[in-house]
């Protein structure tokens, strides 16, 4: 901590060279404003485009200090970055909401979430989620809902999330239907969420009795055989094919792996929310 700025300490984050961590402490009142400014001018060099302010030890933010933080945020925005706030107490967060400051600053629950948000939004790092669940149709809605919520959480819009949910529903239902129902033969769903696309891999263990039926089904899908309008089944994968950007299936004697790629709608059509 600095002798002339007891309420502020600026440090580097080793894994993120372009980000600095700003630890603020105690009451940020009118007396702290010039000290905060001095500390920023001295320590936050121009190579740092982004700053994460750790607010966990802050007890009060006076309007003058809020104004100063706004000014600092503007400096980072001008460099193409941002100043985000993290780990605020509930009381302080409520005050920020009442003042409308939550509309200006991004507020994260904790430091790690702030760092992860940076990795996701700026560095566009990929996130991996893996689910293994019993081969039971009744479980699929819970899985589908979980994936949809993950998509919304990662900034995919309602339409994309709904479409991904539909894809998950279909590939998981097929995995259950054509796979083994033995106690330990779970279905594995791997989700790779990217800034611009999501990749889904659904894998099941084969049921030897259903192999031929599945091969015929996959052949029909590959050859684009039209589904007769009286046919009750078989529309699912056609729908997945329509919704997804890419659909691949690998059927072996051991099991089936379906790989689906779905581009974010904004990437396809250039739409932004």
């Amino acid at each position, binding site marked *: 901590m600095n002798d002339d700025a007891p309420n502020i300490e600026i440090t580097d984050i080793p894994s993120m060279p372009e980000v600095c961590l700003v630890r603020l402490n105690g009451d940020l009142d009118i007396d702290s404003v010039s000290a905060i400014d001095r500390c920023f001018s001295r320590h936050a060099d121009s190579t740092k485009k982004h700053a994460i302010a750790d607010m966990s030890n802050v007890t009060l933010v006076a309007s003058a200090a809020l104004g100063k933080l706004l000014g600092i945020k503007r400096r980072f925005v001008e460099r193409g970055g941002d100043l985000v706030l993290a780990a605020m107490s509930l009381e302080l967060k409520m005050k920020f909401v009442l003042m409308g400051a939550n509309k200006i600053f991004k507020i994260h629950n904790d430091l790690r979430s702030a760092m992860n948000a940076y990795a996701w939004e700026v560095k566009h*790092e990929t996130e991996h989620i*893996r*689910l293994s*669940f*019993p081969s039971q149709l009744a*479980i699929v809605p*819970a899985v589908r*809902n*979980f994936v949809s919520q993950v998509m919304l959480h990662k900034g995919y819009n309602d339409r994309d999330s709904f479409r991904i949910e539909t894809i998950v529903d279909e590939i998981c239902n097929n995995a259950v239907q054509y796979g083994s129902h033995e*106690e330990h033969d779970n279905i594995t769903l791997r989700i790779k969420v990217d800034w611009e696309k999501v990749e889904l891999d659904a894998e099941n263990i084969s049921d030897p009795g259903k192999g031929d039926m599945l091969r015929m089904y996959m052949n029909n899908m590959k050859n684009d055989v039209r589904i007769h309008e009286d046919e009750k089944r078989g529309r699912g994968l056609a729908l997945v094919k329509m919704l997804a950007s890419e659909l691949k299936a690998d059927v072996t004697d051991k099991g089936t792996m379906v790989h689906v790629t779905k581009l974010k709608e904004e990437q396809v059509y250039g739409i932004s929310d």
Partner: protein
Amino acid sequence: MKAETAYRMTVSFPGELDYIPLVRKLVSDVLLVLHFSPKFTFRSEFIVDELCNNAVTYGSSTDRSPVELLCETYSDRVEFTVKDQGGSSENIKRLRQAIAEESSGKGAGLELVRLLAEKVTCTIDENNLTQIHVVRTREGL
């Protein structure tokens, strides 16, 4: 669905607090589908929340270390196992203390888990990989 069968579900997710409500909801939905009561489900949801929060907050050596939750359901009980990548030595020491002392005052979350569950065990290996196992018996048995 046969209640006697053991079902195993595993979720591996990035060590980030924002994922926890989603994981908690997934576990809750699955337990309800497997005919556990809403009360049992809600209390189990609390256990999952607490264990995952601890794993993310204290048990991740890097920003994105994954956390793994294993949920095993039997006719008479549910078992949860949460594995993380291990945190700092200070956090590991704190965890050992919280496990050893029944009422340390610190780690109130784990204390509540202990109240809700029949068995809580913690394993920390030589690489600081932490695993917490909780057994919760179905009510009314």
